[in-house]
């Protein structure tokens, strides 16, 4: 027989092991790159994007200053009622020490984007060169199916553009003009958002995604979207 207290402690232990504190799913305690791409070789052979833009988010460093949100809105003319990126707050009252964490979210630029499949008129599409999920505002009929299809709530209807709007890694406003970083990554005071080229083995994002020391995970891996936004914690001193 075990006492109620022991039982509770045991349950708590269970939570810790399944990674509730570590990030929400069991998957977060193991490195995810081999799930996202079956292997490095397969990835190298099969991914036609060059550069293959991606972002790594150091979740434990986000302090919700929301400068990224502001910079994004200013750079990409995001109306006040919408957002391309935002910060979510997770609050764990029974955690030891730090009880809250902030989780930045944005378009995951999925390799298998549900929104692109769902769009009836190809108004949203996967860019053949760099893998960014783009919007063609002129084609958008506003059926909002892509908004429903997105497992990450990354899309919204923009009344000003009169089309669905979403994050495109600042491609039109910065990257295509020679800037190296997205607006959010450039302004982040804590280095949370690491933007880079996953097809370049010398790039920091490549090294982060392809190491086994600290966990790297993606959101909602079960929907099979193969995101290009990765999350990690405890990266300091590793890469």
């Amino acid at each position, binding site marked *: 027989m075990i006492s109620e207290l022991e039982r509770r402690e045991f349950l708590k232990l269970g939570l810790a092991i399944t990674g*509730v504190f570590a990030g929400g799913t069991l998957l977060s305690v193991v490195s995810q790159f081999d799930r996202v791409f079956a292997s490095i070789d397969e990835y190298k052979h099969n991914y036609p994007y060059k550069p293959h833009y991606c972002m790594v988010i150091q979740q434990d460093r986000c302090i919700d200053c929301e400068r990224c949100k502001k910079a994004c809105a200013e750079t990409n003319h995001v109306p006040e009622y919408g957002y391309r990126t935002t910060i979510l707050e*997770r609050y764990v009252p029974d955690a030891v020490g730090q009880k809250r964490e902030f989780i930045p979210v944005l378009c995951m630029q999925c390799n298998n984007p*549900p929104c692109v*499949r769902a769009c009836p008129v190809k*108004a949203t599409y996967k860019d053949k060169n760099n893998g960014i999920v783009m919007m063609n505002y002129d084609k958008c*009929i506003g059926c909002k199916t892509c908004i429903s299809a997105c497992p990450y709530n990354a899309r919204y209807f923009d009344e000003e553009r009169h089309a669905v709007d979403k994050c495109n890694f600042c491609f039109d406003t910065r990257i295509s003009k020679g800037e190296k970083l997205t607006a959010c990554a450039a302004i982040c005071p804590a280095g949370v958002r690491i933007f880079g080229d996953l097809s370049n083995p010398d790039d920091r994002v490549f090294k982060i995604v392809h190491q086994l020391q600290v966990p790297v995970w993606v959101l909602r891996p079960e929907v099979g979207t193969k995101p290009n936004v990765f999350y990690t914690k405890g990266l300091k001193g590793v890469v």
Partner: protein
Amino acid sequence: MANETKRIKPADAFGAVRTIDRRTFGQLIESISDLISGTRFYYLLLGLGILLIYIAAMFGVSAMSRGYREVYGISREIPWGILISTYVFFVVTSTGLCIISSLGHIFGVKQFLPVGNRAVYLAVVLIFAGFSVIFFDIENPFRMAIYNIISPNFTSNIWWMGTLYGAVMFFMWLEFIFLLLHWHRFAIITGLAGLIADIAAISNLGAIFGMLHSKEYWFGPYIPIYFIASAIMSGCAAIIIFTFLGYKINNEQMDRPLESAMQSIAKLAALMIVVLFFFTAWNVLTGLVGGEGKRMAILAMLKGPYAINFYVFEILIGMVIPFVMLLKNRFKDMRVLFTASLLMIVGIFFMRYDLVVVGQIVPVLYELDVKEYSGLLSYRPSIHEIMLCIGGLGIVATAFLIGEKVFKGHKSYVH
């Protein structure tokens, strides 16, 4: 069936083309004069229908000028509201009507022939009503007309659904005209094309939801299949309602074949209630043991904010009460058939609403365990959305009333 097809030889059909008999035109002119000579009550109803359309159109224009974001209850998290569910309600019922009409016209089940013409006509009307409602949900409907053709995405269910329903509307109109002209061979061909397109369209409509794997409640092959089964029930209920009302408006007595057709349809409806009951039960039961996303949605219906919609409207009004009524009456009294069908249709409206809305109330990032998405999301239809749906009903009512007079109670099956 055999007799029917044998009688209509190609030569006959072409003969008909040559001699578009005066009778048809005469009939039409007579019908129009008939329309003018309706009773006061008829005009009152017609006026009401047109008034509803007018008011809804005003709301539609206001919504367009003020922006849907401001006047509709939809949001980033719940982008589909009552306009979508009402659209689904209309087009699924339309498919049901198409299936009912095809039983007589195409599959030669004689018993169903008497309601065939009215079913075809109403199927067209309901698709049109559905399109009218969704017109005010789609932000750029005019772009759709262009890019649906020049930039099609063949992997998109929305594309297939839109295109197929367009085809359905085309074929069904043709079928209806051919039926009026007694060109039965053409009517059968267009009817069959319409039926195939319609079934494909409705399963694609279901697949719009079923293939969105971001929403656990919808994802899977359930909805496309459920829609077809549920369409038959809606079609049965709708044709009973409209046939009953049609005879009331024209102040006529139903003849024996029609009564027996109505009874057969009511029996089919009762059967479909049972089928749907199993669909619903297993959807709930499987959902309860599945992932958290679907479980939460199901629980929202079982003991959450959608419990009244589910128990009272979907189960009691939509299924149990009409089923008991029909069985108790042994499908005899037309008034019981009508009342039961009316209840079914109300229930079905709620089934569509719940299917669309409950599918979205669980936040997609729920399992991230963040404050922002810690509970169910809520949606409440705005007055603009509700008025536009009522406008859709206005279109159905008006078109039905005009149709009853112009096409003289849709009795051209008698030949």
